[in-house]
């Protein structure tokens, strides 16, 4: 096995264990009362049924990880590391969909009649902590827009001093595999990615800082601060990622432009690697922190039948498959996810569709640009 194959399969193995560990953790960090996307009530969600469902989920996760490792490594060891990585990743991710749907379906059978839940009630904290997290998010939004636009302008101006044919950039190691006579498309590809993703992450950071707080009434006064701490941690993760993405893509773009201009033999791999490591460490620490806090700060609050979840989070009728929240009567744009970590959009809100539509349009534009760079058109 050559060095490239070892690196690819090494990353693949890390990915399998990371995704598996996160999936195993998800049901354990959920808000009390929620189980695989269903609201069962605080007492029911702690009982025998919970343990039984959890066992099924754990076994399914371990089986998926084992199959993915066997498939990925089998293909990789036969001399095709990159296809092994891709197919192994698909085998890792896709089966989680039917596994989730299966345990979610079982959890729905355990849900009490609507009259037995707090679906018709909603609680809100009267403490004002709206400023927390917004400052960093706004700064990240402003900086990411300025930086990504500056990078795009710098890239466009740089094309003037490039030869008519330059190396392509579609390569795992950052080196060109061939020559293209469309320098403009190659040059603007990475800055365009930056222009879409960095401000989008910063926008998400801002929206998260203003997301709905699903506060429990009672709960020893811990629920609202727990929500606040979690919301700030998620917002900071998005805002920091936005800025690091600007730095990372900016460095790659600059290094590639230097190569295209003939000012350098190859990109400075050490610099790119160093920035990537810092970004991954920041994201890893941020992800670990929010997992540690639990979904919605679940580990910081006390959920009990005396302090039940209320509002949209407790209303099974408003959630499709426990994942998509649709409530046109709720003015909230972002609400806590029932399964997993972080927030999801209220698809009953017109603004959510505008944001998603804008982002998907941007993705479509980037796909066209990527295909053009690869010479498809």
């Amino acid at each position, binding site marked *: 096995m050559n060095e490239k194959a070892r690196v690819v399969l090494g990353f693949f193995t890390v990915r399998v264990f990371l995704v598996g560990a996160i999936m195993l953790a998800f049901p354990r960090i959920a808000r009390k009362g929620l189980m695989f996307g269903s609201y069962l009530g605080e007492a029911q969600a702690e009982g025998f049924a919970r343990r039984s469902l959890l066992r099924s989920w754990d076994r399914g996760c371990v089986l998926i990880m084992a199959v993915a490792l066997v498939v990925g490594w089998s293909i990789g060891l036969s001399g095709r590391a990159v296809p092994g990585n891709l197919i192994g990743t698909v085998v890792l991710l896709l089966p989680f969909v039917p596994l989730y749907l299966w345990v979610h379906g079982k959890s729905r059978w355990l849900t009490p009649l609507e009259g037995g839940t707090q679906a018709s009630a909603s609680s809100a904290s009267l403490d004002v902590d709206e400023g927390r997290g917004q400052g960093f998010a706004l700064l990240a939004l402003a900086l990411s827009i300025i930086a990504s636009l500056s990078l795009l302008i710098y890239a466009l101006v740089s094309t003037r001093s490039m030869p008519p044919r330059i190396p392509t950039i579609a390569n795992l190691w950052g080196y060109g595999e061939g020559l293209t006579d469309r320098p403009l498309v190659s040059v603007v590809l990475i800055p365009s990615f930056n222009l879409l993703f960095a401000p989008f992450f910063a926008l998400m950071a801002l929206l998260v800082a203003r997301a709905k707080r699903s506060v429990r009434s009672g709960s020893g006064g811990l629920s609202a601060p727990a929500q606040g701490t979690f919301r700030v941690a998620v917002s900071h993760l998005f805002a920091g990622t936005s800025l690091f993405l600007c730095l990372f893509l900016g460095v790659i773009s600059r290094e590639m432009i230097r190569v295209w201009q003939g000012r350098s033999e190859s990109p400075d791999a050490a610099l790119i690697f160093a920035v990537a490591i810092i970004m991954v460490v920041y994201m890893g620490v941020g992800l670990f922190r929010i997992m540690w806090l639990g979904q919605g700060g679940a580990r910081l609050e006390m959920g009990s039948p005396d302090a039940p979840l209320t509002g949209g989070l407790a209303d099974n009728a408003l959630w499709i498959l426990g994942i998509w929240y649709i409530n046109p009567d709720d003015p*909230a744009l972002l609400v806590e996810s029932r399964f997993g970590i972080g927030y999801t959009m209220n698809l009953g809100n017109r603004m959510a569709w505008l944001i998603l539509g804008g982002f998907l349009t941007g993705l479509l534009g980037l796909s066209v640009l990527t295909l053009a760079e690869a010479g498809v058109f």
Partner: protein
Amino acid sequence: MYIPPMTTITIDRDHGDAVYAQVADQLRQLIASGTLVPGTAIPSVRHLARDLGVSLNTVARAYRLLESEGFLLIRDRAGVTVSAPAREMNEEARRQLVGDLRSVLARLRQAGMGGEELVEMVREEVGDLKGKPDRGGDGGGAGR
């Protein structure tokens, strides 16, 4: 570890009262009991509506009602704060509120509450009020 006090309000859509009335009533109680002291900032219309999952108009209606009753002060930039009790009572407001009180007392009487019982109940309720307006008297309001 310091645990900041958390004050919540809860609305129930199955309850007979309109949602705006539930919001207004709970805020009124929290202010009258001294849980929310004068000058305390409370969430804006948008934020409270979002957290409760109700329309902006519902919360706005509750806030306007409380503003007209003198419980809240709504300013564009400073947001929404709890008002201090008025130092002098408006005569028209007094007539209106005394009329309301008479109506409630009549209903309590009709529901079977005796005179002594009524007086005791009113004494207890007044005792629960905090932040009584200072008219040269004790000024601090009765504690619980």
